[in-house]
């Protein structure tokens, strides 16, 4: 008797669950139908192309594209951009792997039609023959870009904006900021717990501090070497970082992400941090950082450089992507890069409006471009076990 009852209630439960699931299913169908309907009304040309754009970075990068993409779509109603934002630091690598795996499996570009990343991925993709060679033919505005930069990447990528890691400091507390790396280390030792850099695996500014400190002891040209044999020369740099551990914020606390250290600077817990220039300028403008925050580049410089857009060779929507790239390099879009995220424009300054040209007066190109390939991974791993866990 009891069993029958149990069976009955079970069936009832199953039927109920089924009904709920079916409900979900039909909802989805209705949604996609509505989507389709929406598309057909807004784009009667029916020749609408949609391409997928993977980009990575901090929130400001996401905000920038969320501004630029609607601007582009308004001008090109037949093209739809499907943006995929991948959070910075940890999650970018899988996108490259995805493109690579799709190529090896003979499945085109793996659904990625445009990819934004750093110089490391441009170089890696050059060796793996992943990127499409770009020319000023379909992308007229490519002529606005510094041709030397294009030559450096063999025309495989578009440098659409630049940024550099600098020292950001509280000018109320620090009157004479360090000018060189050695002065910086002296400052850190002389002002215990007043300097912080973020966990290098979680954001570029901390990573830059770590890499710059390690490569300080290596010859200048080593920063373009991605051969693992160089790792044996890192020891001196790691010893320096281990020693600095006692003097940094909290005697060895490394906040997570680029924003982690910026928060500490904003709350006054530290007086100096390495940070991305665009993030600092942006947050001073928004009042998130006190107006007394100033920036200083040291020599030899922290790393920096352009961020690149790459088109996978096997993408089948290149025409639409070219149009988008052309728009991205237009002075109008580049003005957003400057105004929205305080980045350096990717095109030559002479192509920008006069007021923007003026605002960049005196911003020297003090940064260095590092291309270490996969070595960055090993640096992070070694940093975690030697510096963080000392």
């Amino acid at each position: 008797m009891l069993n029958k009852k149990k069976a009955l209630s079970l069936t009832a439960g199953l039927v109920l669950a089924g009904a709920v699931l079916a409900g979900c299913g039909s909802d989805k169908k209705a949604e996609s139908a509505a989507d389709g309907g929406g598309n057909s009304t807004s784009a009667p040309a029916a020749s609408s192309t949609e391409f997928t754009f993977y980009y990575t970075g901090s929130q400001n990068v996401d905000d920038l594209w969320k501004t630029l993409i609607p601007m582009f779509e308004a001008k090109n109603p037949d093209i739809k951009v499907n943006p995929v934002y991948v959070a910075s630091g940890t999650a970018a690598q899988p996108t490259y792997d995805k493109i690579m795996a799709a190529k090896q499996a003979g499945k085109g570009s793996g659904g990625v039609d445009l990819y934004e990343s750093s110089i490391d991925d441009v170089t890696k993709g050059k060796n793996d023959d992943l990127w499409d060679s770009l020319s000023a033919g379909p992308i007229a505005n490519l002529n606005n870009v510094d041709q030397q930069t294009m030559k450096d990447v063999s025309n495989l990528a578009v440098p659409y904006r630049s940024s550099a890691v600098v020292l950001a400091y509280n000018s109320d507390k620090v009157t004479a900021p360090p000018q060189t790396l050695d002065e910086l280390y002296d400052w850190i030792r002389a002002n215990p717990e007043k300097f912080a850099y973020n966990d290098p695996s979680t954001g570029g500014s901390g990573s830059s501090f770590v890499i710059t400190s390690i490569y300080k002891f290596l010859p200048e040209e080593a920063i373009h070497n991605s051969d693992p044999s160089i790792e044996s020369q890192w020891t001196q740099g790691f010893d320096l970082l281990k020693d600095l551990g006692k003097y940094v914020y909290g005697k060895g606390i490394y906040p997570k992400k680029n924003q982690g250290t910026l928060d500490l600077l904003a709350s006054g817990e530290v007086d100096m941090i390495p940070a991305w220039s665009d993030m600092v300028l942006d947050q001073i403008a928004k009042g998130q950082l006190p107006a007394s925050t100033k920036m200083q580049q040291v020599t030899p410089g922290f790393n920096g450089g352009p961020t690149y857009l790459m088109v996978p060779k096997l993408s089948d929507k290149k025409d639409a992507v070219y149009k988008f790239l052309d728009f991205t390099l237009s002075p109008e879009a580049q003005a957003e890069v400057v105004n929205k995220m305080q980045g350096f424009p990717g095109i030559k300054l002479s192509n920008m409006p006069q007021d923007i040209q003026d605002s960049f007066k005196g911003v020297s190109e003090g940064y260095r471009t590092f291309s270490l390939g996969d070595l960055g991974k090993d640096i992070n791993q070694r940093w975690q076990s030697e510096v963080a866990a000392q």
Partner: protein
Amino acid sequence: MSRQAKRGLLGISLVLPSFLILVFIVVLPIIGSLKESLTNDGGGYDLSNYKFLFTDKLMRSNIIFTLEITVISSLLVLAISYVLAVYMRFNNGFAVRWIRRMYMIPIFIPTVITTYGLMQLLGNHGWAARILYHLGQDSLPRIIYDMKGIIIANLWFNIPFTTMLLGSALSSVPDSVIESAKDVGAGRLRIFWRLILPLTYKTLLVAVTFVFMGVIGSFTAPYLVGPNAPQMLGVSMEQVFGVFQDRQLAAALAFFTFLLCSFIGYFYVLSMIKEEGMRRS
């Protein structure tokens, strides 16, 4: 077909969907990650990843750190929740009414927001430090970027639900039983140890399972308020998988965490089986 066979078939067909879901969503991935975790750099199979897990200084301290936090958090959560639940069950008044209204609120606040809130509150220059400063206290002990921060976050996340679980178990303890015990002269402590605790013991076990598993697999709070090293296993797993891209080692870590959880699950299942056995006999 005999009636017996028909009923058997019905039973199987009713169990089949959940069984299949279990196989595809739980069992196969576990086997997959076990296989992955046993793969070494050369592509062969051995225990090198597990060996690394227990011999590497960093990994070992991560494991010990995780277990410490999990055990301390679980004990604290259980103790506080139980006291709160007992208080709400056997008292009635202004305070109880307000606790009853308020104690569930943390469930509705997203984890990330809570974590940032805690950082604002307990950080070096946070609210707590500022208030203490005005009261003449100079410095707050380090809470954020420390084990204490993670434990406080765990308390916040787990107490409401555990209190709810224990509260419902306590409300099913009949008043009549307690009153009759009082009538024959049992003291308060005796009633607690002999009646209330045994009657709610099973729910306590369920609660400890939930808290233990929730804490051991937690990520957001340990990532944001935890120290850089040692890390909790969830954070370490993310780093090993996402940053170092050592998938085999990440799989080994995941499988080890699964083993820890199933260790606690074992006691839970054992007591359930015992219970079933008692009911049948």
